[in-house]
């Protein structure tokens, strides 16, 4: 009997078993039970890791997000202002910026930046920990890796995405206002009142669902792929790539679904004019 080959097959078998659906269901269940059982939120150590994750994902990515926001805000106005002015609709610039940046591009582009920077980092960090035996040590010590490692990363990541997207939006809107001065006469007070008039409670609700939901999903995926490896070093880059690709797909999927739902509900209520 070739014991060595069989032992490899056993570990392969194990890897296949932990499918995404299995992990995710177990993860959500464990997350809720951990929060209750271990009183995770009241623990200073966990709060520190959450804060570190917010800093790493949010604060350190701020400059990159700001550059992207300036570019997107400026380009959106540059592309649309001239056309709107030709048709006499420059007053629609504010609502247009809200529609494009606040509802769609802001959450999506911020998510893409975070996925490229932090999801890959979390996936490789956790897979390295698995490969070093750190996950096993936690289990052997009676500490749930979901409470100790996954929860702070997911919570911190989701909070960071929310704040980063807020930064993206205000910087992009400010950049849009500055860019608009080159094309149309748009006083600040009017721009501001147009913006505030265009944002409704549904927009704010969708914004929170999009940012926190995307954060939760992409960081869960990062943790899932990071912890899924069977413990060999060569699996670390594979896990990182898989986490990034799956996160891109899920982020696009979630945001497209939410946008379609939103636009369908708004157009059903107000007609197409309600979109702006």
């Amino acid at each position, binding site marked *: 009997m070739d014991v060595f080959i069989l032992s490899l097959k056993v570990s392969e078998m194990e890897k296949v078993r932990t499918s995404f659906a299995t992990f995710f269901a177990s993860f959500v269940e464990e997350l809720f039970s951990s929060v209750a059982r271990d009183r995770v939120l009241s623990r200073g150590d966990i709060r520190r890791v959450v804060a570190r994750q917010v800093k790493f994902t949010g604060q350190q990515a701020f400059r990159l997000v700001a550059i992207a926001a300036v570019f997107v805000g400026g380009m959106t106005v540059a592309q649309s202002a001239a056309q709107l002015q030709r048709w006499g609709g420059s007053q629609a610039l504010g609502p247009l910026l809200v529609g494009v940046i606040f509802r769609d591009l802001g959450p999506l582009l911020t998510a893409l930046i975070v996925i490229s920077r932090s999801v890959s980092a979390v996936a490789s960090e956790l897979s390295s920990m698995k490969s070093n035996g750190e996950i096993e040590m936690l*289990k*052997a010590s009676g500490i749930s890796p979901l409470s100790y490692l996954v929860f702070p990363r997911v919570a911190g990541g989701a909070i960071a995405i929310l704040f980063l997207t807020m930064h993206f939006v205000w910087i992009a809107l400010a950049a849009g206002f500055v860019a608009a001065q080159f094309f149309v006469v748009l006083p600040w007070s009017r721009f501001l009142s147009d913006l505030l008039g265009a944002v409704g409670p549904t927009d704010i609700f969708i914004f929170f669902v999009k940012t926190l939901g995307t954060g939760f999903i992409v960081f869960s995926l990062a943790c899932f792929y990071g912890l899924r490896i069977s413990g060999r070093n060569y699996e670390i880059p594979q896990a990182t790539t898989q986490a990034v690709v799956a996160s891109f797909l899920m982020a696009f999927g979630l945001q497209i679904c939410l946008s379609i739902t939103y636009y369908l509900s708004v157009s059903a209520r107000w007609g197409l004019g309600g979109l702006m």
Partner: protein
Amino acid sequence: MTKLLWSAKNLELRARDTKIYHIDSIEIHAGEHVALLGDSRHFRRSFFRELAGLESPLKGELCVEGERLPLRDERHPWRDLLSKKMRRKIGVSLENEGLLSNVSVRESLETLFRFKYGDHNASLIEGSQRVVEESATRVGLGEDSLDKRPSELGRLELRLASLCLAFLTKPVILLMENPSQGLHDKGWQALSDTLGDILGSAQRTLVMDTDDWLLAKRHAERWIVFEEGVVIFDGKADDFIARSGPRLLAELETERWQTRHHWIDELRKNLGAA
């Protein structure tokens, strides 16, 4: 009769249709010092991991203090198999120490202790510092080693740090996976002495998974020997030595790592004759 800690019946591990590991019946009682022996890749480690609650059995029955462990359930890969109460009683030292690599050993141990035992408050922080220092003193891990990261430690220090982690909760049951793996003679001697101190000073249960027969001879009076996934011997170490021929003792002293297959052959012959 001492308390029954583990009882295993008809445990099986299969890969596809091939049975690769099978245990008919094993019982381990409190206070026993047991060594799981045999060459690597003969599935003694699988059994050890099931005892430690790191893996659940695929088939069969494994009870820990009378409570049956659940069979492997793909829907709950993250659930701890052992109860919190049992986890407090057990200290596990793994072959791959797995100390948190991005912080010092001290920070790693203190953080894990705090996470396991309560909130982050001043008394617990102080308490965790004291517990870590006590545990380090107990296993002979120096102050300077505590302040280093795992990557800066030598093999013996890593083993001691792992033991220190296992000792944080002052466990009554100690599970050790390949404790002497990679140690040179001096380190081996130091570890063996530490183990002797630990086991001699309190009524502890020891289950050691190892291919180091000499360490097993020093610290375990009961040997469970695996070959190709089957238990070929379960009994007193002296009995194994007596039945495996006169050369065993001499060979243990000179080559502690390898199972000499003529021991096993001799043992089989003697068991057959009996």
